[in-house]
């Protein structure tokens, strides 16, 4: 994927993309001077297809498609290590967050579908019960990925320690939460295809 694909700088596209990031994350990617400090400290860079620094570069070249279609933005765990260290005071983690939002709104098919599924499952549960029910999340995720038996022993261990409650709680506020979640789902539907 990295390889040596042809790079065609598109400054107008870059301008637009940076503007949208500015609106969502309140930070200007154009300031980046490519020092790589974000990447050097990123815990998850080994699971990424582009390093965070390269993402900044791609944004500044206007390579919107590649940025929104990459693994990196989904693998980011929002640990903020990059943000607190950036010598140009770019909020790198927030940029990743903005790019995820953009990717959802553009309805881009993400290569990190498993992570996306995890998040959506999480929201579905929270939207339904108002609180997270961990057992549902784990089971749901395993069903989706087909990795039903991975971590089975671990699950048993946890169950024995009383760490997996079998029944979800459901507070009264769940309905309001559901409303907020459905606001988002509505937007997802409109944005996505």
């Amino acid at each position, binding site marked *: 994927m990295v390889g040596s694909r042809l790079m065609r700088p598109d400054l107008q596209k870059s301008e637009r993309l940076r503007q949208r990031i500015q609106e969502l994350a309140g930070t200007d990617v154009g300031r980046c001077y490519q020092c790589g400090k*974000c*990447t050097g400290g990123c815990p998850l860079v080994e699971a990424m297809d582009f*390093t965070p620094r390269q993402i900044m570069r791609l944004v500044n070249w206007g390579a919107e498609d590649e940025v929104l279609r990459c693994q990196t933005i989904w693998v980011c765990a929002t640990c903020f290590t990059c943000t*607190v260290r950036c010598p140009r005071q770019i909020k790198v983690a927030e940029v990743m967050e903005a790019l995820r939002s953009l990717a959802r709104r553009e309805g881009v098919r993400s290569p990190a579908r498993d992570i996306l599924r995890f998040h959506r499952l999480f929201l579905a549960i929270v939207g339904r019960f108002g609180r997270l029910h961990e057992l549902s999340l784990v089971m749901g995720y395993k069903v989706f990925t087909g990795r039903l038996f991975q971590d089975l022993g671990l699950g048993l261990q946890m169950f024995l320690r009383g760490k997996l409650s079998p029944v979800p709680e459901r507070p009264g506020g769940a309905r309001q939460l559901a409303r907020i979640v459905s606001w988002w789902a509505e937007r997802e539907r409109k944005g996505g295809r």
Partner: protein
Amino acid sequence: MKRVGVFLCWCGSNIAGVVDMDRLQAEVERMPGVVHVEQNKYTCSDPGQESIRRAIREHRLQRVVVAACSPRMHERTFRAMMRTAGLNPYLLEMANLREHCSWVHRDIDEATAKAVDLVRRAVFKVRLARPLQSGKVPITRRALVLGGGIAGIQAALDLADFGIPVVLVESSPSLGGRMAQLDKTFPTLDCSSCILTPKMVEVATHPSIRLLTYSEVESVEGYVGNFKVLVRRKARSVDEQRCTGCGECLSKCPAKVPSEFDLGLGTRGAIYVPFPQAVPNVPVIDRQSCLYFTRGRCRICQRACPAGAIDYQQEDRLESYEVGAIVVATGYDQFDPAAYGEYAYRASPNVITGLEFERLVSSTGPTGGRILTPGGGREPQRVVFIKCVGSRDEQRGASYCSKTCCMYVAKQAILLKEKLPRCEVYVFYMDVRAAGKDYEEFYLRAREMGVQYVRGRVARVFPHGDRLRIRAEDTLIGRRLELEADLVVLASAMVPRPDARQVARKLGIAANQHGFFSEAHPKLRPVETHTAGIFLAGAAQGPKDIPDSVAQAGAAASKAAALLSRQEMETEPVVAEVNEHWCSGCLRCARVCPYNAISEREIRVRTAAGVRTKTVATVNPGLCQGCGACAVACRDGAMNLAGFADQQVLAEVDALCL
């Protein structure tokens, strides 16, 4: 009413081609106070000037208006003419009919109407003009140099060679400054102290230089040519006259404290000279750690001293000096990398700064020139340099490039490779800035010696026991790079000294947002400050290497020498004036004055209730530059600006609005 003469210049066809000069003359003749109007083709020419002089004589003119080009062009010319005609130069006013009228307007009616207004403005203003005299102030032929580092040393020597007496004030016990701490210098790899020490000795022995080490400037009063400087000579507890510099006391002192000169990597006694080549070679007692001063017992040094020079009773002394010019060369400090938690500077002894590394490689340093890790005392197998620590970083440090680090890192890498050829050396950089004579070649030499340059800012240094794990991105390949090292050197930025702003306040000079002293103009007046008579040299003005510091010191010295070569100087006549009768003494004017030109004084006034004293503002015409900020700050209208007085500006407004 003052008799005003108005001289309308055609400037060939430049003005007369657009402005109807006869109609203008007719209008001007009707203006109040105008007794003579004439037209000239080229008023600035010799015949033109001569005709003004003649008219002044014949018509007994008291005020003159020249309606011609921009005063920025010819005001000087016509003021000089006024003098030759026997009138005060400030009784002249110009109306700018060319740049502000005929060159920018086409319509003859509009341009003529505007020209009438412009001339009327000048007439109204000049009627209220008063003769202004520039004063003369004597100049004290002596200079103060603040700071005894390489810049201060150079400035002092250059001034002294001009034959100007110099007072050099250095706050630490010895001359030498930061340069004395360095091992070698780039790009020639000269031994730093070998080239510095002779200069230090020269300063100490020069008949025109009075050297005051272990001294600080307490206050500065006065103005260009006439500064009064109060210097605190801190108690050394050692009699400079008696001490022979034999060093007997040094080895006997039982106290051991971290050495400032070795940046805490070595130790010194409570009585100490900062380094062996110190000038003057006179020890000083650090009273905070001296057993006698803290516990009242010991006196070993006193017993050891064969010259009887130890004097525990010595006290700080204040000495006053009068000088005509000041060269500020107070130098820099190194950025404290503790701000970078991720670089573990506090957490590991094996993470050091560039300046600490200098002490580590120096043959006079704590290890005698052997490069050993401060934590384990081992020879490092791998050393990592991190550049731009505290510089080019708005989050943790400052935005500016510290300028010298690229080269000193190259130098230190070369020194490492020379001393420990098998040691692996990595330099993490963002850009290599090697602009300077022979600098690029020097940097390439480091690479050729096998120094590995990695483009990327290091993200984290993890101490792992004795070793350090460095994590960064190699941005040229886009992959994370991790390696272990025995020693990490942080190329810490040059920052202003912590007391820079206080010094600026004492001297009445400006400092930029970082705290470096501001030059009067970045291009055209690079060694002067906004305050006349005060000049800058060295890294106090901004990050600088040795050649730049020395060059600037020379420039500052010659600027100061040019000033001091005169017996007296003229002061600017366009200065603020106080109407003491009206002044309330609130001193609000002093707060807005950028030149510290306003101070207070007591006067006696007669009132209905008898004589009483009151405080009023007073302007020092030697310092005032005539900006007029004080006049606007003054609600009483007691502060006014000669040549641009309130009544004049109001008259100009009225004239334009008729």
